């Protein structure tokens, strides 16, 4: 085994970390995790790629990727409010409708885009493919760490954060408290959509652009959320840890057995985490009960 395994794990964990952050934001504030964010990941990556092909300007293209993610996050929020919330299915329908619409839009953009690019000389090469490994690793690492830090600051110091938690916990009550839950929901979706868009950009930098982008890592991002126990400080660490387990197992065992062993270990850790949390919760309940009885 060599240092390359750690680099591989680091590269993989960057994508996991940023996407988990978007899921974290949505879950913490709105108590929902929808498929719409996965589509924001794809849109972010495609937006960035096409903007680069048209402008040859990396700054504009990255900005476009983020904007695409934000717009699609907004679409998700809109459909969630219009369809999901009113039917009390926690955004499932909203997300599904959104998913279908966005898939269609991406297909149109892709097809139309490819035709359009034929007339824009010179279309050099795909930026997402021309980044070298060290360049990408540095870029991804900085973005990932920066986003995690910014998010902690947002969570600690912005009133939107507490309002959003209130809305997520009790939608009706927050209305009574003169909060505007719809506005808060849209703001959180914009934020999470933007982060998901960034996640799409850095995943595509690393692994190339393809229509299933985002779906590859969704289960792992969920696993990271469970293992971290929704503790944002450990998000990046656990992303790296899970990626490292996968890489080492793949390296040590032959063929797909390695991947299966890696996944099994990850599932085992998730199960232990859930069990441990349940034990902790039951202990707390017993303690509270004793306290109440003693009073």
């Amino acid at each position, binding site marked *: 085994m060599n240092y*390359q395994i750690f*680099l*591989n794990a680091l590269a993989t964990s960057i994508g996991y970390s940023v996407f988990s952050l978007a899921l974290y934001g949505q879950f913490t504030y709105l108590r929902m995790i929808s498929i719409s964010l996965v589509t924001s990941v794809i849109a972010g990556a495609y937006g960035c790629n096409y903007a680069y092909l048209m402008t040859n300007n990396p700054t504009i293209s990255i900005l476009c990727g983020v904007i695409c993610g934000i717009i699609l996050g907004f679409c998700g929020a809109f459909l969630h409010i219009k369809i999901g919330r009113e039917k009390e299915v926690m955004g499932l329908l909203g997300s599904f409708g959104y998913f279908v619409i966005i898939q269609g839009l991406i297909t149109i953009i892709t097809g139309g885009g490819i035709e359009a690019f034929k007339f824009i000389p010179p279309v050099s*090469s795909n930026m997402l493919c021309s980044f070298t490994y060290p360049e990408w690793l540095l870029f991804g690492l900085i973005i990932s760490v920066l986003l995690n830090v910014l998010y902690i600051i947002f969570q600690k110091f912005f009133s939107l954060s507490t309002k959003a938690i209130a809305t997520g916990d009790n939608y009706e009550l927050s209305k009574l408290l003169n909060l505007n839950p719809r506005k808060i929901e849209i703001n959180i979706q914009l934020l999470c959509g933007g982060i998901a868009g960034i996640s799409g950009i850095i995943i595509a930098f690393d692994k190339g652009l393809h229509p299933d982008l985002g779906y*590859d890592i969704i289960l792992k991002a969920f696993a990271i959320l469970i293992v971290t126990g929704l503790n944002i400080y450990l998000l990046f660490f656990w992303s790296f840890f899970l990626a490292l387990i996968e*890489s080492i197992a793949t390296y040590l065992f*032959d063929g797909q057995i390695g991947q299966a062993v890696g996944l099994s270990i990850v599932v085992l850790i998730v199960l232990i985490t859930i069990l441990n949390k349940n034990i902790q919760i039951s202990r707390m309940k017993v303690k509270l009960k004793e306290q109440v009885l003693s009073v």
Partner: protein
Amino acid sequence: MKLHFNIISIVILILSTLFFSCTKKSSDEYIIGVAVPFSGQEGAATYGKNIKQACELAADEINKTGGISGRKIKLVYEDTKLIPSISVDAVTKLSTVDRVDIIIGDVASSSTIACSKVVEQYKTILISPASTSHEISGISKYVFRTIAPDTYEGEAMAEFCKNKGYRKVAICYVDNAGTKGPALIFKKKYEEFGLEVPTFEVLSQGSTDARTQMTKLISSKPDAVYLLGYALELGTMIKQFREQDKLLPIFSFQVMEEPKVREIAGLSAEGVIFTTPTIYEDLASGKSRNFIEKYKAVYTDPPGIFSANAYDAIYIIKYCIDKVGFDKEKIRSELSQISNFEGASGNFSINKNGDSDQKPFLMIVREGKIVKY
């Protein structure tokens, strides 16, 4: 009453649709089914388009010169989406509704394997211009191919590596019938030569993270690597291999032809040597060159992957019918006896397993373009 009227209307509509959708066989036409993907996963539509255009070119040429024994060729298309179950439905529909005797298709080996049972049941002849899995060899007496099985590519590459003096070649392939074949054959052949395959690694289909597998390959200190996968995985493997090693030679197979591989791999694709059954312009002569020129004259772009094989499929049908007439069983028997046929994909014979025996060509990626090695 209104409800009854509506139900009756719907039933009449369905029945009339079914009635009119059944193709009426005309005596001055000879219908050939084409069951290939026109949509579906990435790259699928390109395969379908290449095959459709080549079939139409061949059919037009034949029709202009009087057709097959006086009957004009009519092509009926079905989209198989590169999914075996849809492919089975398409072949069943062509066999039972359109009642064709011969179908050209499919592209994915798994689809052709799935369809072999259907064609056996309906006694329909299936000619694949694209499926290369060795598992198709001899699968049914009704299945034929105008493309050589992947074993030819694995053997040719093993022979090439041996001649180049590489003692250790590490392999990574995607777990799929189409890519596993050449990997296994290469390994078998190489070990028969007394040479070594130090790592024989597998990657899941659709995976975009092959870094650990590539690390493993490099750790076994090979003289070269042989990478096999579909466009997404192959591009990823090449790119992520070059991140860790700039010098070791990379060998691959026909999927390298797909532009998507070079798009994903970027500059890392430079210098990759691969085998392919496709005949390129700088290799073409005689009928092959003639085909490329005619194709470009009609469609502007040069023929793509599987085009020449699809073109040949139409011409071998004509060859057999001209010889034995329209009897399906006689055509099937004649197909299995084709010898030294001069086609657009080169000269080939069809062996007892229904496979083309054409030897693959060696190509290299230079400055982003595919050229003769």
